[in-house]
């Protein structure tokens, strides 16, 4: 059963994934987890805290979320190799770093959509009839 990302999926696999979710994504997520496990303990702890924080942004699945996890693993593996201290990766305000980071992925855009929906709802409630386009930033 080929699961290479570029190949067309068999009909069987298409049906199966309706039930299981994307097997390719699951494989990528497992690979990410394995990479994180290899990090020195304090780096791993920091990444796991970051993962926990990411849950506040909404559901993180699909290829976009997997790209996010892989980029995260790249960053931390590279930082370990360079000897960059944890504080220098995260900066004084770790939240700021995470916000800038997630804005690049669907998980961050999910929240942007909710923000727009909220802004539009207030506009409607305030009687400002504006034909807003759906923006994502």
């Amino acid at each position, binding site marked *: 059963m080929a699961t290479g990302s570029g190949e067309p999926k068999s009909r069987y696999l298409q049906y199966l994934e309706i039930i299981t979710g994307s097997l390719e994504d699951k494989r990528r997520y497992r690979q990410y987890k394995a990479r994180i496990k290899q990090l020195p303990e304090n780096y791993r702890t920091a990444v796991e805290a970051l993962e926990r924080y990411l849950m506040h942004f909404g559901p993180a699945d699909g290829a976009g979320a997997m790209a996010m996890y892989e980029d995260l693993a790249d960053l931390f*593996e590279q930082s370990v190799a360079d000897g960059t201290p944890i504080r*220098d990766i995260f900066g004084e305000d770790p939240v700021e770093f995470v916000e*800038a980071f997630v804005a690049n992925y669907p998980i961050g855009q999910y929240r942007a959509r909710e923000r727009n929906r909220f802004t539009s709802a207030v506009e409607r409630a305030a009687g400002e009839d504006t034909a807003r386009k759906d923006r994502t930033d």
Partner: protein
Amino acid sequence: MGKQMTEMLKGTLEGVVLAILSARPAYGYEITAWLRDQGFSDIAEGTIYALLVRVEQRGLVDVEKVPSEKGPPRKVYSLNAQGREYLEEFWRTWSFLAERLEQLRKGGN
């Protein structure tokens, strides 16, 4: 690096990084190291990394993976034609802003 500096830098960091890349290709760690050398001591490696991911997604830079002695392959970023255009626009905006602020400081508006 003061709070005010951090706040002001936020809006210009993208242009700053593209300007660094216009001189020569670089990877994330080099960019952060250069900024720290220049006195921007509070810049987080992660923030620069997130910024590089963003400009890559927007097609302003080209990326080449180069094997490294230690750790995973490094992503080396270089400014492409679209990035150069964007950088020119950044400098125009910056000149406008700097001029107006200077006028404001001199008291004539």
